[in-house]
């Protein structure tokens, strides 16, 4: 009652049972790789297979993963239906990118959000020798960036996404800064720099370096777990006058590894970090995972 022959008529090793748990118990996990790759299983069955494979001997796990990978490549090559999506779909997607949702009810214009920049860690924390290489890479990347923006940028992107590009400042646009002009180091190394490290609720720490003369602070997260699925970290300045906190940008899992620069801190009483839905919120959702009074 089972197809147990392969294309060459050889007897395949093991016939399937009707249910997945029996297959797993009988050592047929690897034979389930194709059905798994095809999503032809229920969620519960997927969980059962995942649980089995994660606890399986390395060789079996590797075989399973290999077969899944091959099956997925095969499917991607073979099932190639195409259809043009609606013309405005990309604009709708861009509008939902983290920080692109321009802080509904925002107290400040886009430019304020754009003040928050996040640089690559290497630029902010240079080690003597590799820093040179990193600078070259940054420069090369920046050149390509400029070239591409001149030539290749789609017209619709310019119109549609320009606002989002500005608003996105919080998530890594500023990674190309040359080291000597690095505003992060300028803040961190300022004569009046003060620094505090606070625990982040959920793990890790946030180190805040603040310079009144630069009217800026730098936040660096260390060992902070990535936000839960569908969430991002959002930074806020809490004004001294008790008005609504002002978003300073979002940090997704990637941005966590990079320092963030916050300018215009003169009127702020504190810096707060909250967990918000992807895209950010107009007002902070309490409790904060970290907060630091600024005492400016």
């Amino acid at each position, binding site marked *: 009652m*089972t*197809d147990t022959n*392969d*294309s060459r008529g050889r007897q395949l090793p093991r*016939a399937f049972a*009707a249910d997945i748990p029996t297959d797993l118990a009988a050592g047929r996990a690897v*034979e389930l790789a*194709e*059905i798994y790759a*095809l*999503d*032809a299983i229920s969620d519960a069955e997927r969980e059962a297979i995942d649980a089995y494979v994660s606890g399986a001997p390395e060789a079996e796990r590797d075989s399973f993963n290999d077969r899944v*990978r091959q099956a*997925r*490549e095969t*499917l*991607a*090559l*073979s099932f*190639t*239906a195409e*259809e043009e*999506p609606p013309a405005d*779909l990309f604009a709708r*997607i861009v509008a*939902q*990118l983290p920080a692109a949702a321009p802080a509904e009810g925002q107290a400040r214009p886009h430019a304020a959000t754009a003040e928050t920049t996040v640089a*690559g*860690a*290497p630029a902010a*924390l240079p*080690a*003597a020798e590799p820093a040179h290489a990193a600078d070259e*890479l940054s420069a090369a990347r920046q050149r390509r*960036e400029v*070239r*591409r923006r001149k030539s290749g940028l789609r017209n619709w992107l310019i119109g549609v996404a320009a606002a*989002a*590009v500005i608003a996105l400042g919080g*998530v*890594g646009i500023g990674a190309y800064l040359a080291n000597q002009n690095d505003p992060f180091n300028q803040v961190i*190394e*300022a004569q009046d720099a*003060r620094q*505090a490290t*606070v625990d982040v609720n959920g793990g890790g720490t946030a180190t*805040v*370096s*603040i310079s009144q003369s630069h009217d800026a602070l730098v936040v660096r997260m260390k060992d902070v777990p990535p936000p839960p699925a569908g969430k991002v970290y959002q930074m*806020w300045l809490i004004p001294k006058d*008790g008005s609504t906190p002002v978003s300073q940008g979002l940090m997704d899992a*990637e941005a966590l*590894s990079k320092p963030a620069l916050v300018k215009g801190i003169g009127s702020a009483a504190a810096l*707060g970090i*909250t967990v918000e839905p*992807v895209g950010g919120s107009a007002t902070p*959702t309490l409790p*904060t995972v970290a*907060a630091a009074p600024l*005492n400016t």
Partner: protein
Amino acid sequence: MKTLQPGNAAFRFARHDAATAQTRVQHPPAGNLCLRVMETPNAPNFDAPAPPGTAVDLNQQLAQLLGRIADSDQASFAEFYRLTSRRVFGMARRVLIDPELSEDTTQEVFLQVWQNAAKFDPASGSPLAWLMTISHRRAVDKVRSSQSASDREARYGANSQDIDHDSVSDEVDSRLEAEAVVRCLETLTETQQESVRLAYYGGLTYREVAEKLNAAIPTIKSRIRDGLIRLKTCLGVS
């Protein structure tokens, strides 16, 4: 909405001089050095005209773009979308039929690309397979939560006459590639093809495929496995 309180003041700012800062700055923790390596861009030929060709060409481009998307590069994201959105939306339409659900799915897929580009691992597959895996999973989740199996079967029945390669490009290489796929699909038995297609575009589980085809469950499992393995072997996927 409550206002944020600058509450938990379990910390203090300590004054420290520039020399201290200097020392710290010159000795980054080891983790930052690793980041440097991971951020190394590797796209020497990015500006070359995009050959609208084979899967290999496409995957090379997509891999470079994903590296940049991981750095939050919106232009690369736009290019990635331009190169792949027809595939993602096309698959969603096949699985979901409904245009709005298909748009929602496509939207979710590309948001996931933006957020998870850094997690893409070339060792575990090509960018296209990664993308289509995400897309299929999303589409299947959505169709299963929004439509009963019998609806899906009925829907699929009305739709299953479509050929898969309804958008074969004029490019010679990609045409050859598409022909290889057609030829390889033909090496599958009809029942194998049917089972794989029902699962892929119908969004059916192996159990539902068995019910629809009135076949034994172990038989369907074997057909799907054997069909995909035969296809893989014919296409030379390794």
